[in-house]
């Protein structure tokens, strides 16, 4: 039972629910940056007459000020509420009429808008994206309806989901400064206080061409797309780019823990630890080692957590761990276990730390490492199967500052990692003294 932790909020649920990143079959990226700072990255793939258009913004939850959490995500919703040329809802209707699908997502680090369309309509879509980007209507009456929709979204995703609710609390306690401590959807009390003026101010400050990257993957010609983007995003007036909030998280002084009591059926325990993200050319081996360690713990069928904690020691019925090397500033590494009726959080916690301590003391076997590398590489090939994931990987690497042109270096780094590297990375970062533990305790039901 995969229980993936995610921080992406979409306009509609579940449209795309698949896995990790991608590298293209031919791997060739073509890019251009316009004078006003807007950027275009294209990957041509002529195997089917479709294309994915994504507009990525270097704006996310981290760019909100305290008391106004949720604003970046509110804004994402407002992008569908009309512009100078398009009435509210018109954008999606036009995309639908051309046989396309559209959606958007917001995280702490970025906001992205995307459309899958027949390749022949790419130019038109880019024009529509540019139009709403620069001429958004932002009417109060639309806002008043949309903020209610977003509160329902929060109730559905967080309030009424005990696991999700616990993770929100755990994240808030795990970090003192870094913006990953705030929920992307925003705290309910903040949502209640936001106004259309907040949204307008956010738009003015952040929706500037220098923050925009257009990514197109599919059956297109770079030269033609470039011409089109030059005439739209490339023509917008250059405006100053606000610096991003990316503070240095203070080093933890010792373990922290919280207990969250909610109406639930069964307990769960999760551990978070701040770890470094990938900085190409600076810490390739360290980041790749963390990714491989995480895979050896919870990836594939033979992950150690599953084998030892679930199958052998019977300490949980479902487990998982996660690391995202392409986070911004730091990543909040996590591991969790869902516990059955007779399984205790204390025993699971002990078992988990025994596993981690063991990895810090003993090198992983060559066979285990080879399988992990093979699976991470295979996952990148499987992900090429989806235009969405390919474009997403490009946009993501670009807006967090890693750079899409570095993407092939990730697998190269994975390939170079040795058992000693993994041991060292685990010993250095995945330590109890740096961790926060969260326990979901089922509350007596009303």
């Amino acid at each position, binding site marked *: 039972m995969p229980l993936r932790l995610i921080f992406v909020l979409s306009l509609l*649920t579940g449209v795309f629910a698949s896995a990790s990143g991608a590298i293209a079959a031919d791997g060739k990226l073509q890019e251009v940056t316009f004078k006003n700072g807007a950027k275009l990255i294209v990957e041509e793939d002529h195997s089917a007459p479709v294309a994915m258009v994504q507009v990525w913004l270097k704006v996310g939850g981290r760019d909100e000020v305290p008391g106004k959490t949720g604003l970046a995500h509110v804004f994402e919703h407002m992008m569908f509420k009309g512009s100078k040329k398009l009435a509210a809802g018109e954008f999606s209707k036009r995309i639908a009429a051309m046989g396309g699908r559209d959606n958007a997502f917001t995280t702490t680090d970025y906001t992205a808008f995307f459309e899958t369309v027949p390749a022949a309509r790419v130019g038109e879509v880019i024009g529509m994206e540019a139009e709403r980007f620069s001429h958004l209507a932002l009417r109060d009456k639309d806002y008043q309806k949309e903020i209610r929709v977003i509160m329902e979204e929060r109730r559905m995703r967080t309030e009424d989901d005990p696991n999700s609710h616990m993770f929100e609390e755990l994240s808030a306690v795990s970090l003192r400064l870094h913006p990953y401590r705030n929920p992307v959807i925003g705290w309910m009390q903040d949502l209640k206080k936001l106004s259309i003026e907040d949204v307008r101010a956010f738009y003015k400050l952040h929706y500037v061409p220098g923050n925009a990257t257009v990514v197109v993957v599919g059956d297109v010609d770079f030269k033609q797309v470039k011409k089109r983007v030059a005439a739209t995003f490339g023509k917008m007036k250059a405006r100053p780019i606000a610096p991003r909030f990316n503070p240095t998280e203070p080093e933890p002084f010792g373990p922290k823990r919280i207990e969250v009591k909610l109406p639930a059926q069964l307990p769960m325990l999760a551990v978070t630890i701040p770890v470094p993200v990938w900085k190409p050319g600076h810490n390739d081996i360290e980041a790749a080692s963390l990714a491989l360690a995480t895979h050896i713990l919870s990836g594939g069928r033979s992950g150690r957590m599953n084998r030892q904690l679930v199958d052998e020691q019977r300490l949980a019925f479902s487990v998982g761990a996660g690391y995202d090397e392409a986070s911004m500033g730091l990543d909040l590494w996590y591991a969790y276990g869902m516990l059955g009726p007779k399984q205790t959080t204390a025993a699971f916690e002990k078992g988990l730390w025994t596993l981690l301590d063991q990895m810090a003391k003993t090198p992983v076997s060559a066979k285990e490492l080879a399988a992990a590398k093979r699976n991470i590489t295979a996952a990148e090939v499987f992900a090429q199967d989806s235009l969405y994931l390919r474009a997403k990987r490009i946009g993501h690497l670009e807006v967090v500052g890693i750079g899409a042109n570095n993407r092939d270096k990730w697998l190269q780094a994975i390939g170079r990692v040795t058992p000693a590297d993994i041991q060292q990375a685990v010993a250095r970062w995945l330590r109890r003294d740096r961790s926060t533990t969260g326990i979901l305790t089922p509350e007596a039901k009303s």
Partner: protein
Amino acid sequence: MRISMRIRFAIPCMAFVLFMCAAITPAQAVPPIQQQRLPNGMRVLLMEAHNVPMVSMKLSLAGGSRFDAAGKGGTASLLADMISDHTARHAHPVWDDLLDADAIKLGAGAGRDDFSLGLTVLKDALKPGLDAFSEALLQPGWDQKRFAILKHDAISAARKSREEPGVRAAQAAAALLFAHHPYGHRPGGTVKSLQRIKLDDLKALYAAQVKPSGAVLAVSGDITMAELLPLLKSRLKGWRGKPATGLMDISRPAGVAGKQADVALPTTQMLVQLLRLGPSRSDADFFPAFVLNHILGSGGFASRLMQEVREDRGLVYGVYSYFQPLAAPGPFVITLQTRADQAKEAESVVRHVLSDMAAGHISNKQLKAATENLTGSFAQRMDSNRERVGLISMIGLYNLPLDYLSSWTARVQAVTLAQVKAQAAKYLKPEAWNRVRVGPKSALN
């Protein structure tokens, strides 16, 4: 890092909508589906795609949850867990190491009609992948200890899932809509039904239904039929026989109207589902009903329900409709979640849309928009191996014509306004719908 966990029940729901949409239309030439029949009766359907060095496949046969013995809901689902867990030749941990060494993605599952075994591999691991696939299929291990562990974990997961409004609604909906019909429970089963299952139940289901006659292997990827067939023949030659019950051997559910079921759960929202029976996969009016549903609530933001309930009133984050076309009529569902004190208002908006459409208030413009969206989006619904395999296996299992895809555009475009209105009159009268609500006790009045 990720702060919220995705609501698990929402995914199957939407995935299902996509599956329905996936059954769409070629605006451009579709690669043909190639067909071969093995001597044992199994059909192989292949769509070639050479752009990524990988191969995906799925074997589907009549062995889903409708074959679970009475009171033992979850049997087919546990068989799926078991069959992919180990084999007679390879014990559990060794089997996992073997598959991971070659990045072989092997998994089994159970729907209401179908039992399936899926494989995704890199092209260069095709042979070991097919070895594993056929070994799992033909040489089950039936290890009693592993069964006890898998069963125990399934029971814990079923208990945990009682936290989820969507799961609770689906359970109540199956019982309300199908009563004692074989479709009357969720494939995953419940804590109680799982507790009753014994290893012999899995063996009995396997012996009765996991047979090549009527089975379909759908394949998409970097391979040709000439390469594939010999690899399959040599590995599946010992597999013979006919299932005890065929896919189409199923009674028509009786159908109910105006019934209600409420489930109390301490949530802030109320989940409201309206349900009735929808068309079966072989329904003569499948296409008009399909287009009708797109207009009603599966066309995303362009749908009537989304417009009225979300866009005009801000009552929900999402409201969707879908029907599940099975061997017999399956569920037709409208689902939404809203703050508990708004549930009555939201439900009345939905009922108003139903009655309005049932009375024939559907415009040519709406039909045109739906048809354009459906036909235009065909290519992108088929742009991955995973999507193609899902589509081809559905065509194969339900014995739809092999030109199903290439004739889709024409059939969707041929749907007239009069036909859609006739389907609306048939399906959308509000009094014919049943209701399930999941939410706080205080609001369930």
